[in-house]
Protein backbone atom coordinates (compact mmCIF):
# COMPACT_ATOMS: atom_id res chain seq x y z
CA UNK A 1 0.00 0.00 0.00
CA UNK A 2 1.45 3.45 -0.92
CA UNK A 3 2.67 5.44 2.05
CA UNK A 4 0.30 8.35 1.40
CA UNK A 5 -2.70 5.98 1.56
CA UNK A 6 -1.62 4.76 5.02
CA UNK A 7 -1.18 8.36 6.18
CA UNK A 8 -4.57 9.31 4.74
CA UNK A 9 -6.32 6.36 6.39
CA UNK A 10 -4.84 7.21 9.80
CA UNK A 11 -6.04 10.80 9.37
CA UNK A 12 -9.55 9.65 8.41
CA UNK A 13 -9.55 7.29 11.40
CA UNK A 14 -8.75 10.21 13.68
CA UNK A 15 -11.60 12.26 12.14
CA UNK A 16 -14.00 9.34 12.63
CA UNK A 17 -13.01 9.03 16.29
CA UNK A 18 -13.47 12.80 16.84
CA UNK A 19 -16.91 12.68 15.25
CA UNK A 20 -18.02 9.70 17.34
CA UNK A 21 -16.84 11.29 20.60
CA UNK A 22 -18.38 14.64 19.67
CA UNK A 23 -21.77 13.15 18.84
CA UNK A 24 -21.90 10.83 21.86
CA UNK A 25 -20.99 13.54 24.38
CA UNK A 26 -23.93 15.82 23.57
CA UNK A 27 -26.53 13.34 24.82
CA UNK A 28 -26.09 14.38 28.45
CA UNK A 29 -26.92 18.08 28.02
CA UNK A 30 -30.39 19.54 28.52
CA UNK A 31 -32.10 20.91 25.42
CA UNK A 32 -31.71 24.52 26.58
CA UNK A 33 -29.46 27.43 25.70
CA UNK A 34 -27.64 26.89 28.99
CA UNK A 35 -27.12 23.23 28.10
CA UNK A 36 -25.85 24.05 24.61
CA UNK A 37 -23.65 27.03 25.52
CA UNK A 38 -22.57 26.36 29.14
CA UNK A 39 -22.97 22.57 29.34
CA UNK A 40 -25.46 23.02 32.22
CA UNK A 41 -22.46 24.33 34.23
CA UNK A 42 -21.40 20.75 34.83
CA UNK A 43 -17.90 20.36 33.36
CA UNK A 44 -15.30 18.69 35.57
CA UNK A 45 -11.57 19.30 35.85
CA UNK A 46 -10.37 16.93 33.11
CA UNK A 47 -12.62 18.28 30.37
CA UNK A 48 -12.15 21.93 31.35
CA UNK A 49 -8.37 21.44 31.46
CA UNK A 50 -8.31 20.06 27.94
CA UNK A 51 -10.80 22.63 26.63
CA UNK A 52 -8.55 25.43 27.83
CA UNK A 53 -5.34 23.75 26.72
CA UNK A 54 -6.47 22.43 23.36
CA UNK A 55 -8.51 25.52 22.45
CA UNK A 56 -5.57 27.81 23.08
CA UNK A 57 -2.99 25.68 21.29
CA UNK A 58 -4.18 26.03 17.77
CA UNK A 59 -2.86 25.41 14.30
CA UNK A 60 -0.61 28.40 14.97
CA UNK A 61 1.07 26.63 17.89
CA UNK A 62 1.46 23.31 16.08
CA UNK A 63 2.62 24.67 12.73
CA UNK A 64 3.53 28.29 13.49
CA UNK A 65 5.46 27.55 16.72
CA UNK A 66 8.06 25.33 15.02
CA UNK A 67 8.08 27.82 12.12
CA UNK A 68 8.99 30.67 14.49
CA UNK A 69 11.68 28.61 16.23
CA UNK A 70 13.09 27.60 12.85
CA UNK A 71 13.17 31.07 11.29
CA UNK A 72 13.33 33.44 14.27
CA UNK A 73 14.89 31.35 17.07
CA UNK A 74 14.43 32.76 20.58
CA UNK A 75 11.69 35.13 19.37
CA UNK A 76 9.41 32.09 19.68
CA UNK A 77 9.99 32.07 23.46
CA UNK A 78 7.47 34.89 23.73
CA UNK A 79 4.72 32.25 23.42
CA UNK A 80 6.02 30.47 26.54
CA UNK A 81 6.55 33.79 28.32
CA UNK A 82 2.95 34.93 28.03
CA UNK A 83 1.63 31.46 28.80
CA UNK A 84 3.36 31.73 32.22
CA UNK A 85 1.01 34.50 33.33
CA UNK A 86 -1.80 34.61 30.76
CA UNK A 87 -4.44 32.52 32.53
CA UNK A 88 -3.54 33.57 36.09
CA UNK A 89 -6.13 36.40 36.24
CA UNK A 90 -8.79 33.67 36.09
CA UNK A 91 -7.68 32.42 39.48
CA UNK A 92 -8.59 35.78 41.00
CA UNK A 93 -11.63 36.95 39.01
CA UNK A 94 -12.86 33.60 37.63
CA UNK A 95 -14.70 32.56 40.82
CA UNK A 96 -16.59 35.87 40.87
CA UNK A 97 -17.52 35.47 37.21
CA UNK A 98 -18.70 31.90 37.80
CA UNK A 99 -20.78 32.85 40.87
CA UNK A 100 -22.40 35.79 39.12
CA UNK A 101 -23.06 33.58 36.10
CA UNK A 102 -24.95 31.08 38.25
CA UNK A 103 -26.83 33.79 40.04
CA UNK A 104 -27.93 35.79 37.00
CA UNK A 105 -27.84 33.11 34.30
CA UNK A 106 -25.03 34.50 32.13
CA UNK A 107 -23.60 32.24 29.45
CA UNK A 108 -21.49 34.79 27.55
CA UNK A 109 -18.85 37.32 28.53
CA UNK A 110 -20.80 40.37 27.32
CA UNK A 111 -23.82 39.51 29.49
CA UNK A 112 -21.64 40.15 32.54
CA UNK A 113 -20.52 43.56 31.29
CA UNK A 114 -24.05 44.43 30.13
CA UNK A 115 -25.39 43.78 33.62
CA UNK A 116 -22.55 45.47 35.51
CA UNK A 117 -22.76 48.64 33.40
CA UNK A 118 -26.53 48.44 32.73
CA UNK A 119 -25.87 48.83 29.05
CA UNK A 120 -27.08 47.34 25.80
CA UNK A 121 -24.53 49.22 23.73
CA UNK A 122 -21.50 47.60 25.41
CA UNK A 123 -22.49 43.98 24.67
CA UNK A 124 -23.51 44.88 21.12
CA UNK A 125 -20.13 46.54 20.51
CA UNK A 126 -18.35 43.60 22.13
CA UNK A 127 -20.32 41.17 19.98
CA UNK A 128 -19.30 42.92 16.78
CA UNK A 129 -15.65 43.15 17.90
CA UNK A 130 -15.69 39.49 19.00
CA UNK A 131 -17.07 38.28 15.70
CA UNK A 132 -14.52 40.40 13.81
CA UNK A 133 -11.77 38.88 15.96
CA UNK A 134 -13.08 35.30 15.66
CA UNK A 135 -13.37 35.19 11.87
CA UNK A 136 -9.68 35.59 10.91
CA UNK A 137 -8.72 33.22 13.71
CA UNK A 138 -11.20 30.64 12.45
CA UNK A 139 -10.07 31.12 8.86
CA UNK A 140 -6.50 30.46 9.94
CA UNK A 141 -7.54 27.15 11.52
CA UNK A 142 -9.35 26.12 8.33
CA UNK A 143 -6.36 26.98 6.18
CA UNK A 144 -4.19 24.90 8.53
CA UNK A 145 -6.52 21.89 8.20
CA UNK A 146 -6.58 22.18 4.40
CA UNK A 147 -2.80 22.44 4.31
CA UNK A 148 -2.38 19.27 6.41
CA UNK A 149 -4.67 17.26 4.13
CA UNK A 150 -2.83 18.52 1.07
CA UNK A 151 0.53 17.47 2.53
CA UNK A 152 -0.54 14.01 3.72
CA UNK A 153 -2.01 13.07 0.36
CA UNK A 154 1.00 14.46 -1.51
CA UNK A 155 -1.21 17.04 -3.23
CA UNK A 156 -3.98 14.65 -4.25
CA UNK A 157 -6.57 16.36 -2.03
CA UNK A 158 -6.59 20.14 -2.62
CA UNK A 159 -6.57 22.46 0.39
CA UNK A 160 -10.19 23.57 -0.15
CA UNK A 161 -11.39 19.95 -0.01
CA UNK A 162 -9.26 19.13 3.03
CA UNK A 163 -10.64 22.11 4.95
CA UNK A 164 -14.17 21.08 3.95
CA UNK A 165 -13.67 17.50 5.23
CA UNK A 166 -12.17 18.53 8.58
CA UNK A 167 -14.61 21.35 9.25
CA UNK A 168 -17.56 19.32 8.01
CA UNK A 169 -16.83 16.98 10.93
CA UNK A 170 -16.44 19.93 13.33
CA UNK A 171 -19.73 21.48 12.24
CA UNK A 172 -21.61 18.22 12.75
CA UNK A 173 -20.48 17.69 16.34
CA UNK A 174 -20.70 21.37 17.35
CA UNK A 175 -24.21 21.62 15.86
CA UNK A 176 -25.35 18.44 17.56
CA UNK A 177 -23.61 18.60 20.92
CA UNK A 178 -22.64 22.22 21.65
CA UNK A 179 -20.03 22.83 24.31
CA UNK A 180 -20.05 19.22 25.52
CA UNK A 181 -19.06 18.11 22.02
CA UNK A 182 -16.31 20.74 22.04
CA UNK A 183 -15.18 19.64 25.51
CA UNK A 184 -14.94 15.91 24.99
CA UNK A 185 -13.38 16.13 21.52
CA UNK A 186 -10.87 18.62 22.92
CA UNK A 187 -10.01 16.10 25.63
CA UNK A 188 -9.30 13.46 22.98
CA UNK A 189 -7.49 15.93 20.72
CA UNK A 190 -5.49 17.43 23.59
CA UNK A 191 -4.17 14.03 24.72
CA UNK A 192 -3.28 13.26 21.12
CA UNK A 193 -1.42 16.54 20.65
CA UNK A 194 0.54 16.23 23.90
CA UNK A 195 1.66 12.68 23.13
CA UNK A 196 2.77 13.65 19.63
CA UNK A 197 4.49 16.85 20.69
CA UNK A 198 6.60 15.14 23.36
CA UNK A 199 7.25 12.10 21.17
CA UNK A 200 8.37 14.00 18.07
CA UNK A 201 10.01 16.84 20.02
CA UNK A 202 12.40 14.49 21.77
CA UNK A 203 12.81 11.98 18.93
CA UNK A 204 13.77 14.41 16.13
CA UNK A 205 16.73 16.10 17.94
CA UNK A 206 17.95 12.62 18.92
CA UNK A 207 17.63 11.25 15.38
CA UNK A 208 19.18 14.29 13.64
CA UNK A 209 21.85 15.37 16.16
CA UNK A 210 22.15 12.70 18.83
CA UNK A 211 20.14 14.62 21.46
CA UNK A 212 18.76 18.00 22.54
CA UNK A 213 22.15 19.21 23.86
CA UNK A 214 24.07 18.43 20.64
CA UNK A 215 21.27 20.10 18.65
CA UNK A 216 21.65 23.36 20.58
CA UNK A 217 25.47 23.03 20.33
CA UNK A 218 25.17 22.91 16.54
CA UNK A 219 22.85 25.95 16.45
CA UNK A 220 25.05 27.89 18.89
CA UNK A 221 27.97 27.36 16.53
CA UNK A 222 26.12 28.07 13.27
CA UNK A 223 23.71 30.83 14.30
CA UNK A 224 24.17 31.92 17.95
CA UNK A 225 21.82 34.93 17.61
CA UNK A 226 18.93 32.48 17.22
CA UNK A 227 19.41 31.25 20.79
CA UNK A 228 19.80 34.67 22.40
CA UNK A 229 16.55 36.42 23.32
CA UNK A 230 14.82 38.29 21.80
CA UNK A 231 15.82 36.29 18.72
CA UNK A 232 15.31 37.48 15.17
CA UNK A 233 12.69 39.67 13.54
CA UNK A 234 10.72 38.68 10.43
CA UNK A 235 13.49 40.08 8.21
CA UNK A 236 16.20 37.97 9.87
CA UNK A 237 17.82 40.89 11.75
CA UNK A 238 17.81 40.92 15.59
CA UNK A 239 14.33 41.60 17.02
CA UNK A 240 13.91 44.58 19.36
CA UNK A 241 13.14 44.18 23.06
CA UNK A 242 10.27 46.64 22.59
CA UNK A 243 8.63 44.39 20.01
CA UNK A 244 9.30 41.21 22.05
CA UNK A 245 8.04 42.71 25.31
CA UNK A 246 4.93 44.23 23.77
CA UNK A 247 4.14 40.91 22.04
CA UNK A 248 4.31 39.23 25.46
CA UNK A 249 2.27 41.99 27.12
CA UNK A 250 -0.51 42.20 24.54
CA UNK A 251 -0.84 38.40 24.39
CA UNK A 252 -0.88 38.07 28.19
CA UNK A 253 -3.49 40.81 28.58
CA UNK A 254 -5.70 39.34 25.89
CA UNK A 255 -5.22 35.70 26.86
CA UNK A 256 -7.67 35.53 29.75
CA UNK A 257 -10.38 37.66 28.12
CA UNK A 258 -10.80 36.13 24.66
CA UNK A 259 -14.60 35.79 24.63
CA UNK A 260 -14.63 32.11 23.60
CA UNK A 261 -12.30 31.16 26.50
CA UNK A 262 -13.93 33.51 28.99
CA UNK A 263 -17.37 31.94 28.52
CA UNK A 264 -15.88 28.57 29.52
CA UNK A 265 -15.72 29.93 33.09
CA UNK A 266 -19.50 29.45 33.18
CA UNK A 267 -19.16 25.79 32.25
CA UNK A 268 -17.22 24.82 35.41
CA UNK A 269 -18.97 22.47 37.80
CA UNK A 270 -17.76 24.49 40.80
CA UNK A 271 -15.18 27.04 41.90
CA UNK A 272 -12.70 24.39 42.94
CA UNK A 273 -12.77 22.88 39.42
CA UNK A 274 -12.13 26.29 37.93
CA UNK A 275 -9.17 27.00 40.22
CA UNK A 276 -7.63 23.58 39.64
CA UNK A 277 -7.86 24.17 35.87
CA UNK A 278 -5.96 27.46 36.15
CA UNK A 279 -3.32 25.89 38.42
CA UNK A 280 -2.75 22.95 36.06
CA UNK A 281 -2.74 25.03 32.90
CA UNK A 282 1.09 25.50 32.77
CA UNK A 283 1.45 21.70 32.62
CA UNK A 284 -0.35 21.90 29.27
CA UNK A 285 1.51 25.02 28.13
CA UNK A 286 4.88 23.37 28.70
CA UNK A 287 4.14 21.10 25.75
CA UNK A 288 5.24 24.06 23.64
CA UNK A 289 8.83 23.25 24.62
CA UNK A 290 9.07 20.05 22.54
CA UNK A 291 7.09 21.82 19.79
CA UNK A 292 9.85 24.45 19.65
CA UNK A 293 12.50 21.69 19.70
CA UNK A 294 10.98 20.42 16.44
CA UNK A 295 11.54 23.81 14.81
CA UNK A 296 15.07 24.11 16.20
CA UNK A 297 15.82 20.62 14.85
CA UNK A 298 15.43 22.01 11.34
CA UNK A 299 17.78 25.02 11.69
CA UNK A 300 21.01 23.21 10.82
CA UNK A 301 19.67 19.98 9.28
CA UNK A 302 17.07 21.53 6.90
CA UNK A 303 18.25 25.01 5.87
CA UNK A 304 16.23 27.18 3.49
CA UNK A 305 12.72 25.73 3.94
CA UNK A 306 10.10 28.22 2.69
CA UNK A 307 7.64 29.11 4.10
CA UNK A 308 9.03 28.57 7.58
CA UNK A 309 5.67 27.18 8.80
CA UNK A 310 6.29 24.17 6.52
CA UNK A 311 9.29 23.03 8.58
CA UNK A 312 7.34 20.52 10.68
CA UNK A 313 5.73 18.63 7.76
CA UNK A 314 9.00 18.92 5.83
CA UNK A 315 10.98 17.20 8.60
CA UNK A 316 8.33 14.59 9.35
CA UNK A 317 7.93 13.51 5.73
CA UNK A 318 11.64 13.67 4.83
CA UNK A 319 13.56 10.54 3.82
CA UNK A 320 16.43 11.73 6.06
CA UNK A 321 14.32 11.13 9.17
CA UNK A 322 12.60 8.08 7.70
CA UNK A 323 9.50 7.95 9.89
CA UNK A 324 7.08 5.09 9.06
CA UNK A 325 3.82 6.16 7.36
CA UNK A 326 1.80 5.28 10.47
CA UNK A 327 3.73 7.81 12.56
CA UNK A 328 3.50 10.42 9.80
CA UNK A 329 -0.26 9.81 9.77
CA UNK A 330 -0.44 10.32 13.52
CA UNK A 331 1.49 13.57 13.18
CA UNK A 332 -0.99 14.76 10.54
CA UNK A 333 -3.87 13.83 12.81
CA UNK A 334 -2.17 15.81 15.61
CA UNK A 335 -1.90 18.89 13.41
CA UNK A 336 -5.58 18.50 12.47
CA UNK A 337 -6.43 18.12 16.17
CA UNK A 338 -4.68 21.43 16.89
CA UNK A 339 -6.69 23.17 14.19
CA UNK A 340 -10.04 21.57 15.03
CA UNK A 341 -9.81 21.94 18.81
CA UNK A 342 -9.50 25.71 18.42
CA UNK A 343 -11.90 26.00 15.49
CA UNK A 344 -14.74 24.18 17.24
CA UNK A 345 -14.62 26.48 20.28
CA UNK A 346 -14.58 29.51 17.98
CA UNK A 347 -17.54 28.28 15.93
CA UNK A 348 -19.53 27.53 19.05
CA UNK A 349 -18.76 31.00 20.46
CA UNK A 350 -19.69 32.72 17.17
CA UNK A 351 -23.23 31.37 17.35
CA UNK A 352 -23.65 32.12 21.06
CA UNK A 353 -22.24 35.66 20.86
CA UNK A 354 -24.26 36.59 17.76
CA UNK A 355 -27.56 35.45 19.30
CA UNK A 356 -27.11 36.28 23.01
CA UNK A 357 -25.07 39.49 22.79
CA UNK A 358 -25.96 41.03 19.44
CA UNK A 359 -29.49 39.93 18.56
CA UNK A 360 -30.46 39.62 22.24
CA UNK A 361 -29.76 43.32 22.72
CA UNK A 362 -31.31 44.51 19.48
CA UNK A 363 -34.48 42.43 19.96
CA UNK A 364 -34.65 41.09 23.52
CA UNK A 365 -37.09 38.41 24.61
CA UNK A 366 -36.30 35.51 22.28
CA UNK A 367 -37.64 32.29 23.90
CA UNK A 368 -35.01 29.79 25.09
CA UNK A 369 -35.83 27.15 22.47
CA UNK A 370 -35.63 29.71 19.66
CA UNK A 371 -32.37 31.03 21.06
CA UNK A 372 -30.83 27.55 21.01
CA UNK A 373 -32.11 26.93 17.49
CA UNK A 374 -30.68 30.22 16.18
CA UNK A 375 -27.33 29.62 17.87
CA UNK A 376 -27.07 26.28 16.07
CA UNK A 377 -28.09 27.79 12.74
CA UNK A 378 -25.52 30.56 13.11
CA UNK A 379 -22.80 28.03 13.94
CA UNK A 380 -23.38 26.64 10.46
CA UNK A 381 -23.62 30.11 8.89
CA UNK A 382 -20.36 31.37 10.43
CA UNK A 383 -18.63 28.12 9.51
CA UNK A 384 -19.69 28.57 5.90
CA UNK A 385 -18.68 32.25 5.87
CA UNK A 386 -15.24 31.57 7.34
CA UNK A 387 -14.73 28.71 4.89
CA UNK A 388 -15.63 30.89 1.91
CA UNK A 389 -13.35 33.69 3.06
CA UNK A 390 -10.49 31.32 3.87
CA UNK A 391 -10.56 28.98 0.93
CA UNK A 392 -12.35 30.79 -1.87
CA UNK A 393 -11.51 34.46 -1.30
CA UNK A 394 -8.01 33.65 0.02
CA UNK A 395 -7.67 37.03 1.75
CA UNK A 396 -4.58 37.82 3.79
CA UNK A 397 -5.05 37.10 7.49
CA UNK A 398 -1.96 38.60 9.03
CA UNK A 399 -3.24 42.18 9.33
CA UNK A 400 -6.67 41.03 10.50
CA UNK A 401 -5.11 38.85 13.18
CA UNK A 402 -2.90 41.66 14.46
CA UNK A 403 -5.96 43.86 14.64
CA UNK A 404 -8.02 41.22 16.47
CA UNK A 405 -5.36 40.72 19.18
CA UNK A 406 -5.29 44.48 19.70
CA UNK A 407 -9.10 44.56 20.05
CA UNK A 408 -9.32 41.65 22.44
CA UNK A 409 -6.75 43.16 24.81
CA UNK A 410 -9.13 46.12 25.24
CA UNK A 411 -11.42 43.82 27.24
CA UNK A 412 -8.83 43.38 29.99
CA UNK A 413 -9.19 46.85 31.57
CA UNK A 414 -12.98 46.47 31.37
CA UNK A 415 -12.76 43.15 33.22
CA UNK A 416 -10.53 44.63 35.92
CA UNK A 417 -12.75 47.64 36.63
CA UNK A 418 -15.87 45.47 36.60
CA UNK A 419 -14.66 43.83 39.81
CA UNK A 420 -12.20 46.25 41.35
CA UNK A 421 -13.34 49.82 40.72
CA UNK A 422 -16.85 50.67 41.87
CA UNK A 423 -16.55 54.20 40.50
CA UNK A 424 -16.37 52.96 36.88
CA UNK A 425 -19.48 54.09 35.03
CA UNK A 426 -21.30 53.02 31.91
CA UNK A 427 -20.06 56.04 29.94
CA UNK A 428 -16.50 55.47 31.19
CA UNK A 429 -16.55 51.83 30.11
CA UNK A 430 -18.00 52.72 26.72
CA UNK A 431 -15.56 55.55 25.99
CA UNK A 432 -12.68 53.42 27.20
CA UNK A 433 -13.57 50.71 24.71
CA UNK A 434 -14.07 53.18 21.88
CA UNK A 435 -10.80 55.02 22.62
CA UNK A 436 -8.82 51.78 22.94
CA UNK A 437 -10.31 50.26 19.80
CA UNK A 438 -9.88 53.52 17.86
CA UNK A 439 -6.20 53.93 18.78
CA UNK A 440 -5.55 50.28 17.91
CA UNK A 441 -7.15 50.68 14.47
CA UNK A 442 -5.32 53.93 13.70
CA UNK A 443 -1.91 52.55 14.71
CA UNK A 444 -2.51 49.39 12.69
CA UNK A 445 -3.29 51.55 9.67
CA UNK A 446 -0.29 53.85 10.31
CA UNK A 447 2.31 51.65 12.05
CA UNK A 448 4.98 54.35 11.65
CA UNK A 449 3.16 56.27 14.42
CA UNK A 450 3.75 53.43 16.94
CA UNK A 451 7.04 54.28 18.65
CA UNK A 452 9.68 51.60 19.25
CA UNK A 453 7.96 48.80 17.32
CA UNK A 454 5.54 48.42 20.24
CA UNK A 455 2.28 46.59 19.45
CA UNK A 456 -0.56 49.04 18.65
CA UNK A 457 -2.80 47.26 21.15
CA UNK A 458 -0.55 48.43 24.02
CA UNK A 459 -1.17 52.07 23.05
CA UNK A 460 -4.85 51.15 22.76
CA UNK A 461 -4.91 49.77 26.31
CA UNK A 462 -3.25 52.96 27.61
CA UNK A 463 -5.85 55.13 25.82
CA UNK A 464 -8.62 52.82 27.05
CA UNK A 465 -7.57 53.11 30.71
CA UNK A 466 -7.11 56.89 30.49
CA UNK A 467 -10.50 57.45 28.83
CA UNK A 468 -12.26 55.08 31.22
CA UNK A 469 -10.88 56.82 34.31
CA UNK A 470 -11.45 60.38 33.09
CA UNK A 471 -14.99 59.82 31.78
CA UNK A 472 -15.99 57.77 34.84
CA UNK A 473 -14.86 60.52 37.18
CA UNK A 474 -16.72 63.13 35.12
CA UNK A 475 -20.03 61.20 35.10
CA UNK A 476 -22.39 60.42 38.02
CA UNK A 477 -21.78 57.30 40.09
CA UNK A 478 -23.84 54.24 39.27
CA UNK A 479 -26.25 52.81 41.87
CA UNK A 480 -23.82 51.51 44.50
CA UNK A 481 -26.18 48.74 45.69
CA UNK A 482 -26.09 47.35 42.16
CA UNK A 483 -22.34 47.82 41.68
CA UNK A 484 -21.49 46.10 44.99
CA UNK A 485 -22.90 42.86 43.60
CA UNK A 486 -19.83 42.85 41.36
CA UNK A 487 -17.16 44.56 43.41
CA UNK A 488 -18.13 42.78 46.64
CA UNK A 489 -20.04 39.76 45.35
CA UNK A 490 -20.37 38.02 48.71
CA UNK A 491 -22.47 40.90 50.02
CA UNK A 492 -24.94 40.52 47.24
CA UNK A 493 -25.35 36.77 47.26
Amino acid at each position, binding site marked *: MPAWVVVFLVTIGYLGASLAIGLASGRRATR*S*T*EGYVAGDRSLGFLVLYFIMGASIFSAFAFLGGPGWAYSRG*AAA*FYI*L*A*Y*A*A*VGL*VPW*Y*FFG*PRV*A*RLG*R*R*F*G*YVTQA*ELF*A*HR*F*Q*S*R*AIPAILAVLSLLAFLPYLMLQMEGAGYVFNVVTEGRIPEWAGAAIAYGVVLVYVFRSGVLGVGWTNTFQGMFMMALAWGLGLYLPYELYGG*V*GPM*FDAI*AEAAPDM*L*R*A*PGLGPDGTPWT*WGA*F*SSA*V*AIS*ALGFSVWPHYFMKIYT*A*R*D*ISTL*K*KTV*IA*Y*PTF*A*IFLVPILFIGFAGVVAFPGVEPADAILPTIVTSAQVGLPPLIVGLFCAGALAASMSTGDALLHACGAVAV*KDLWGNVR*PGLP*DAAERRWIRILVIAFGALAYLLAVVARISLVDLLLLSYGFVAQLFPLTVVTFLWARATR*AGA*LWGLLAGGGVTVVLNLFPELAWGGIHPGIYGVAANVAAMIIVSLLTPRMDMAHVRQFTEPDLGS
Partner: protein
Amino acid sequence: MDEPRPSARSGHRAVYACAAAFYLFLFVAVMWPIYPRFAGIEPRVLSMPFSLAYVVAALIASFLVLLALYAWERRGSDGAVPGGEGAQRPRSGAGSARPPADV
Protein backbone atom coordinates in the same frame (compact mmCIF):
# COMPACT_ATOMS: atom_id res chain seq x y z
CA MET B 1 -21.79 30.99 57.27
CA ASP B 2 -19.87 32.77 60.03
CA GLU B 3 -18.14 36.00 59.06
CA PRO B 4 -14.34 35.68 59.30
CA ARG B 5 -12.74 37.68 62.10
CA PRO B 6 -11.22 41.04 60.98
CA SER B 7 -7.67 39.82 61.74
CA ALA B 8 -8.21 36.65 59.68
CA ARG B 9 -9.66 38.71 56.84
CA SER B 10 -6.67 41.07 56.78
CA GLY B 11 -4.37 38.01 56.85
CA HIS B 12 -6.19 36.59 53.82
CA ARG B 13 -5.88 39.91 52.02
CA ALA B 14 -2.15 40.03 52.72
CA VAL B 15 -1.67 36.56 51.21
CA TYR B 16 -3.66 37.46 48.10
CA ALA B 17 -1.78 40.75 47.80
CA CYS B 18 1.55 38.86 47.96
CA ALA B 19 0.35 36.41 45.30
CA ALA B 20 -0.82 39.25 43.06
CA ALA B 21 2.50 41.05 43.56
CA PHE B 22 4.38 37.87 42.63
CA TYR B 23 2.43 37.50 39.38
CA LEU B 24 2.92 41.15 38.55
CA PHE B 25 6.64 40.61 39.05
CA LEU B 26 6.54 37.45 36.92
CA PHE B 27 4.76 39.38 34.16
CA VAL B 28 7.53 41.98 34.15
CA ALA B 29 10.26 39.35 34.56
CA VAL B 30 9.60 37.82 31.14
CA MET B 31 9.98 41.21 29.41
CA TRP B 32 12.41 44.10 29.18
CA PRO B 33 14.22 45.22 31.40
CA ILE B 34 14.60 41.99 33.44
CA TYR B 35 14.62 39.23 30.82
CA PRO B 36 17.58 40.76 28.86
CA ARG B 37 19.80 39.96 31.90
CA PHE B 38 19.04 36.26 31.42
CA ALA B 39 18.82 36.17 27.62
CA GLY B 40 22.14 34.44 26.81
CA ILE B 41 22.98 30.89 25.79
CA GLU B 42 25.14 29.91 28.79
CA PRO B 43 24.87 28.34 31.27
CA ARG B 44 22.88 25.49 29.79
CA VAL B 45 20.09 24.04 31.91
CA LEU B 46 18.89 20.52 31.06
CA SER B 47 20.66 20.96 27.70
CA MET B 48 18.57 24.05 26.92
CA PRO B 49 20.04 27.52 26.34
CA PHE B 50 19.59 29.72 29.41
CA SER B 51 17.22 32.06 27.52
CA LEU B 52 14.79 29.15 27.10
CA ALA B 53 15.36 27.63 30.54
CA TYR B 54 14.51 31.03 32.07
CA VAL B 55 11.01 31.20 30.54
CA VAL B 56 10.41 27.51 31.33
CA ALA B 57 11.34 28.31 34.96
CA ALA B 58 8.82 31.18 34.89
CA LEU B 59 6.14 28.75 33.72
CA ILE B 60 6.99 26.28 36.49
CA ALA B 61 7.10 29.04 39.12
CA SER B 62 3.65 30.18 37.99
CA PHE B 63 2.33 26.66 38.50
CA LEU B 64 3.96 26.18 41.93
CA VAL B 65 2.84 29.50 43.43
CA LEU B 66 -0.80 28.98 42.40
CA LEU B 67 -0.63 25.43 43.74
CA ALA B 68 0.68 26.73 47.07
CA LEU B 69 -2.04 29.39 47.19
CA TYR B 70 -4.71 26.78 46.53
CA ALA B 71 -3.30 24.47 49.21
CA TRP B 72 -3.29 27.36 51.68
CA GLU B 73 -6.91 28.19 50.83
CA ARG B 74 -8.00 24.60 51.37
CA ARG B 75 -6.16 24.30 54.66
CA GLY B 76 -7.62 27.60 55.89
CA SER B 77 -11.16 26.49 55.18
CA ASP B 78 -10.98 22.89 56.43
CA GLY B 79 -11.19 21.35 53.02
CA ALA B 80 -13.64 23.74 51.44
CA VAL B 81 -12.23 26.28 49.01
CA PRO B 82 -13.33 29.79 49.98
CA GLY B 83 -16.25 30.65 47.81
CA GLY B 84 -16.18 27.16 46.45
CA GLU B 85 -19.80 26.40 47.05
CA GLY B 86 -20.50 25.82 43.41
CA ALA B 87 -23.59 23.83 44.08
CA GLN B 88 -26.17 26.58 43.64
CA ARG B 89 -28.53 25.76 40.83
CA PRO B 90 -28.51 28.39 38.13
CA ARG B 91 -31.57 30.38 37.33
CA SER B 92 -32.75 29.65 33.85
CA GLY B 93 -32.30 32.43 31.32
CA ALA B 94 -30.69 35.78 31.85
CA GLY B 95 -33.90 37.70 32.30
CA SER B 96 -33.00 39.07 35.71
CA ALA B 97 -29.81 40.47 34.31
CA ARG B 98 -31.40 42.17 31.33
CA PRO B 99 -30.16 45.76 31.16
CA PRO B 100 -32.38 48.67 30.21
CA ALA B 101 -32.09 50.39 26.85
CA ASP B 102 -29.40 53.06 26.84
CA VAL B 103 -27.13 55.22 24.75
